[in-house]
């Protein structure tokens, strides 16, 4: 598939891109331990956005993996995870805020110039604001390339999995409606180290799909979310 757009998001930075329905956003970790806190919104819609609890419960999963469909507040399949080298992307851990960054000591533009450490919150709110949205539009995100391991115990212990992703690990998302995707490469908020990695974002022209598409056949719920995506504009 031809690459329509290619942008490397540096380690610890934030970026946003609008992706046309049908196209594929492919994210590639450029370093081991990279994290990409990703927020998916319906472009041109004032409020509809990815809803992680609805996505997880409809597909009976505590992790994001192919060929799951990422669903919205209003029951629309926003994007399908059409492929990935990893079978676990975290959706429970949220994104970092300035308090997390503060655990690694003081940092500022004045002392560190563009190497200053910035939280996912700072970067994501900046990108949201550029698109006429703000912090009120923040919801749970997917932390691509990270794993917050779940457990069978009574407390439901969560533990950050060290070394989950290697350089070259990738995930591809097919836009099911026009999307605004906002990403931060700040470390996962449960990562005990500040060791961000860059992420390459590429937009490919997608291919049409039919009823035999893996996301259509995955579960009845996934198929209904994709049918809803086709019906956003009747």
């Amino acid at each position, binding site marked *: 598939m031809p690459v329509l757009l290619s942008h490397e998001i540096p380690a610890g930075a934030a970026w946003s891109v609008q992706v046309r329905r049908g196209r594929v956003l492919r994210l590639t970790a450029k370093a081991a331990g990279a994290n990409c806190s990703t927020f998916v919104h319906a472009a041109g819609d004032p409020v509809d956005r990815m809803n992680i*609890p609805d996505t997880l419960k*409809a597909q009976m999963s*505590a992790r994001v993996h192919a060929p799951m469909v990422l669903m919205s507040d*209003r029951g629309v399949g926003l994007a399908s995870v059409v492929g990935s080298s990893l079978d676990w992307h975290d959706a429970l851990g949220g994104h970092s*805020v300035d308090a997390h960054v503060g655990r690694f000591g003081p940092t500022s533009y004045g002392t560190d110039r563009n190497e200053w450490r910035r939280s996912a919150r700072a970067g994501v709110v900046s990108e949201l604001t550029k698109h006429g949205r703000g912090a009120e539009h923040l919801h749970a995100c997917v932390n691509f390339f990270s794993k917050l391991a779940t457990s069978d115990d009574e*407390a*439901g212990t969560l*533990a950050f999995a060290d070394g989950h992703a290697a350089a070259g690990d990738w995930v591809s998302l097919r836009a099911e409606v026009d999307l605004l995707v906002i990403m931060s490469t700040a470390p996962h908020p449960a990562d005990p180290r500040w060791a961000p990695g860059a992420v390459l974002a590429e937009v490919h022209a997608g291919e049409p799909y039919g009823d035999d598409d893996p996301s259509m056949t995955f579960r009845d719920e996934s198929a209904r979310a994709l049918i809803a995506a086709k019906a956003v504009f009747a």
Partner: protein
Amino acid sequence: MTTTPDLDVTVAAGDGWVGVIPAGGTFRIVDLHGNQAADTLFYDAADLDNRYSAMDTIREQGAVYLTTGSKLLSANLDVLATITEDLCGRHDTVGGACSQESNVIRYGAHTRHQHACRQTFLRYGAEVGIGPAQLGHNINFFMNVPLTADGGLSFADGVSAPGKHVQVRAERDIIALISNCPQLNNPCNGWNPTPIQLLGWWSQ
């Protein structure tokens, strides 16, 4: 708590409630008939964008279920409330709330016009300026959503029973927005939505 409560409200099956809990106040939700999910959102009364954050809460406590001692964090990592009593044992906060649209995805088009928590949240939230953008991911008190080590998630029968309650202490002035879940299509309400009771004591 044996003193006369400052708040004593029974929320009918499928109905909702919104109100302010003052800092230091005790707020109790009673599962009157058992196995009734109480979908709950908390907000910093001084800043609606500083709202309850399910993911921040579970990550910072390192565990996915809520119970006694759980600090209910906001998106800015402020403690909005602390669970001080829990006769149930554990509560869900990753299962979200039902909506008419998610019911269609989960159960089919015939459920589009069934009553759902999101309708209740929007109706009662409007009274205090909470709209769709401000509806974060909620707590499902009395609901059981077990996760497994291999990344599975399911809705299971409740671990609650008639008369069990959960109680929080407000750590600042907070708004509570509650939907007494009307869901009929899964076991979260024991297939029969019933009333809950809200009790509050504002001074100790």
